[in-house]
């Protein structure tokens, strides 16, 4: 089953004005269980697309199918049960007065019985390293702590489709790796969980099954990380870059060394040894 099927989406924020369309005939689809990274320059339409997928915005034209059902007024409540989103700014999603209440709120909405709730809250707070902050106000947390709580809240609901819009931007590299390991673990326990990640960290994109490059509201490029990152110059031209582990190899190649950016570190270093 396809988790997401987006067909010829058009969108503008101000229909009445002669404004350029933010999304222009954008289409993509993904299978259940896939992980996709969306990369693209600032203002290319990534967050707009995510908001359309959770029906916070409505398309001017085009169709969205989630889990084989078209996203429409009469399916939106059902589909929202299965889709979770972590926003760019976590403050936009805190509702509870404490971290505990905030995670509980999402669970209540999914009709999780009260007696199970406390265990689930504790489990996910632990997974993101925030178990000692359960009684704190979300507003009184540091930037990275807020992001961890927002992630715990959404993961605890076990969405079939998880959207992460720069959800780890304020975390240190270690923290980012921990969260990636956590979502990977959840995906291996639950094979049909689909993850869409919007990120400016090319290293994060490298770890997904597939990358979709968004540029000026369109799909500009699409493929496996190796495929996409083989187009270094095109990516650079639109403001993107290679992840570190590919970039140094690419630069050595440009300097005349017989190295490819698809080599492992060991292979590349071996060549330099000779």
């Amino acid at each position, binding site marked *: 089953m396809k988790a997401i099927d987006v067909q010829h989406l058009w969108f503008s924020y101000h229909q009445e004005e002669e404004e350029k369309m933010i999304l222009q005939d954008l289409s993509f689809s993904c299978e259940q269980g896939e992980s996709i990274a969306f990369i693209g320059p600032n203002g290319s339409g990534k967050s707009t697309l995510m908001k359309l997928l959770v029906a916070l915005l409505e398309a001017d034209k085009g169709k969205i199918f989630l889990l084989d059902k078209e996203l429409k007024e009469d399916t939106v409540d059902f589909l929202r049960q299965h889709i979770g989103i972590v926003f760019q700014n976590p403050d936009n999603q805190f509702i509870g007065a404490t971290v505990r209440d905030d995670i509980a709120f999402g669970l209540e909405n999914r009709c999780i019985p009260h007696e199970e709730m406390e265990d689930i809250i504790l489990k996910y707070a632990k997974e993101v390293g925030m178990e000692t902050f359960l009684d704190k106000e979300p507003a009184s947390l540091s930037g990275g702590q807020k992001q961890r709580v927002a992630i715990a809240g959404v993961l605890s609901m076990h969405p079939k489709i998880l959207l992460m819009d720069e959800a780890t931007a*304020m975390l240190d*590299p270690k923290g980012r790796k921990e969260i990636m390991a956590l979502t990977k673990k959840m995906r291996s326990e639950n094979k049909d969980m689909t993850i869409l990640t919007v990120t400016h960290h090319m290293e994060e994109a490298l770890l997904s099954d597939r990358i979709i490059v968004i540029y000026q509201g369109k799909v500009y490029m699409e493929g496996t990380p190796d495929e996409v990152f083989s187009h270094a110059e095109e990516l650079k031209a639109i403001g993107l870059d290679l992840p570190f582990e590919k970039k140094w190899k690419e630069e050595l190649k440009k300097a005349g060394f017989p190295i490819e950016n698809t080599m492992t570190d060991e292979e590349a270093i071996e060549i330099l*040894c000779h």
Partner: protein
Amino acid sequence: MPLMFDHVYYTYDASSPLPSKAIEDIHFTLNEPFFCGIIGQTGSGKSTLVQQINALLRPTQGKVIVGEFVVDSSKKKMKEIKSLRKYAGLVFQFAEYQLFEETVLKDVSFGPKNFKENEEVAVEKAKKALKKVGIPEEYFSKSPFELSGGEKRRVAIAGLLAMEPQILILDEPTAGLDPKGAQEILALFYDLYQNGTSILLITHDMNVVLKYCTSVMVLHQGKLLGMYSPLDVFYQKELLSEAEIDAPDLICLVEQMEKKGFSLNRQNIRDIESFVAEIKKMKGEVK
């Protein structure tokens, strides 16, 4: 002039039943101009520390000396607060909270206007700053709230640049920027530094610290572990593990190569370009 922290403590909700100690006994001196990084895990006190400098938060104990200003624990409103904030300007970690005007241009020209520039000069400064951060003219009349995340951050940074502070305090300025934008904005800060402006930069991107910073403060659980040169921190495994920080990718690569018998000049390697140059030099010598 120096930026000095004299045994500064800050506790959130100090008088409540649940006080929360955020920084403890922070003590250091930086001589201007500096390009100093602040690193440390989530929750280690970085944002709290920098907010003492322009009195967004006042020390619970101790004092901060910023140029000719003194920020201490007194509850009295500082009468020179406006000049202090012009001297040391800050961009928040969540930059969008800084935006408030009707249009992008008004937002960025607010700073200079507020500091008594006439309208025309203020608007000129704003336009120049917006251009520097890559915001095109067709955005000037847009509402700052109708921008993408990265665009909002760029506008907030432009707002600070237009004020021309002597010390720029930047809390994760590249979070949310695309790779090109991040590079350009860092180069911009570096350029300002070379022209005498001081930069205090909180970042989780260790590659940035390695490339640009002349010194770096390491925070851990609210305490300052020390002030170092970036190369000293990143090749010191014990310090890194104490602060729970990973070395930058580039340092890991250099170490990996050293294990294979390469002898690279660590001092020269600050980014991928200088790394490649170093390899070329070495290989050239071999030939």
